[in-house]
């Protein structure tokens, strides 16, 4: 009875033990490699499930006082009575839930235009916007600027934005291109054309010859 080995050709019968010896030498490496691969896959799986990521600190639930809604960098826009756009921006705006028409603004700035296109800008530290009647009460370091005409500074001002009407009954300092005006109240009406200074006015105008005196 011939055994299966006799069926293998003579040449390959000699190489086979060599190959087996080589395989025997490689076996530990190969199994080690497979082991590493298995570990790697396991680690990858664990990483993917988030096992290694440090748990982010739980985000403190933004506790919004029940009666306020806070918005940061907000802008209110609209059209005034002459259909010209105006905008009021604030770093933060807090809407009062009990009286939603009132919006407390911080770091306020705004802009509108006169009929002739000249810009009027205003800014203040604080403001209170009434969205029902579209009025804005500016407070603390109020600056009103009418391009090429004047810069007015005061501590409080009430602005009816849609009608470009501003009133203030506190001291106001105005810088003109060629002089200054100090008064104890101001009213700006008629598209910024009429500016009434009240309660005692002191106006100073730069040096002037009678030929071309310089007054506002």
């Amino acid at each position: 009875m011939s055994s299966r080995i006799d069926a293998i050709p003579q040449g390959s019968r000699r190489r086979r033990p060599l190959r087996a010896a080589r395989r025997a030498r490689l076996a530990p490496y190969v199994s080690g490699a497979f082991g590493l691969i298995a570990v790697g896959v396991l680690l990858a799986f664990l990483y993917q499930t988030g096992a290694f990521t440090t748990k982010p600190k739980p985000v403190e639930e933004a506790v919004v006082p029940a009666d306020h809604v806070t918005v940061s960098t907000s802008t209110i826009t609209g059209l005034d009575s002459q259909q010209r756009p105006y905008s009021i921006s604030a770093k933060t705006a807090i809407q009062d839930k009990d009286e939603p028409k009132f919006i407390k603004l911080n770091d306020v700035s705004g802009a509108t235009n006169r009929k002739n296109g000249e810009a009027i800008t205003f800014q203040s530290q604080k403001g209170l916007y009434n969205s029902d009647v579209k009025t804005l009460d500016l407070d603390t370091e109020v600056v009103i600027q009418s391009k090429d005409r004047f810069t007015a500074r005061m501590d409080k001002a009430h602005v009816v934005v849609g009608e470009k009407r501003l009133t203030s009954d506190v001291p106001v300092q105005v810088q003109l291109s060629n002089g200054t005006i100090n008064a104890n109240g101001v009213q700006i009406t008629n598209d910024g054309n009429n500016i009434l200074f009240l309660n005692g006015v002191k106006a100073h105008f730069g040096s002037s010859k009678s030929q071309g005196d310089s007054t506002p």
Partner: protein
Amino acid sequence: QTVDTSTAATESKTPRNVDIEADTMEILDEQKKAIFKGNVKAKRGDVTLNAELLTVTYEEQPDPKNKDEKKTEVTLLDAEGSVVIVTAKQTVTGKTAHMDVKANKLWVKGGAKVVQGKTVMNGEQLFVDLKTNKSEMTGGRVKGSFVPGQ
């Protein structure tokens, strides 16, 4: 009858700051007017003007030095109500005063009166040309009382 207005004339030609105090001031930008109302005191150099109301008419022109800027120039002054103009040498009073700043001419109307030292002149209207120093008291019977210097 002429009145010596040389000081007022010199004064008007010298560049000076202008200071105005009043109860209220209204700028009417469209009409290029600034209206001072109530206890108006205007001072420019040695000349002061008191009145109940002072209307300043101005014009705006591009500033030759800076084309983006507008230069404001006063063209007319109109004072009303107990007008008193005081210069270094005289006191002029009347109901109204009108000054054409560019032309350097002044009209005081409504019982104009000029007091210079002990000399007093009355008339209906005083006209002064500050450029030529010429002045004229006219209207009705001009009365003057002159006291020669001792």
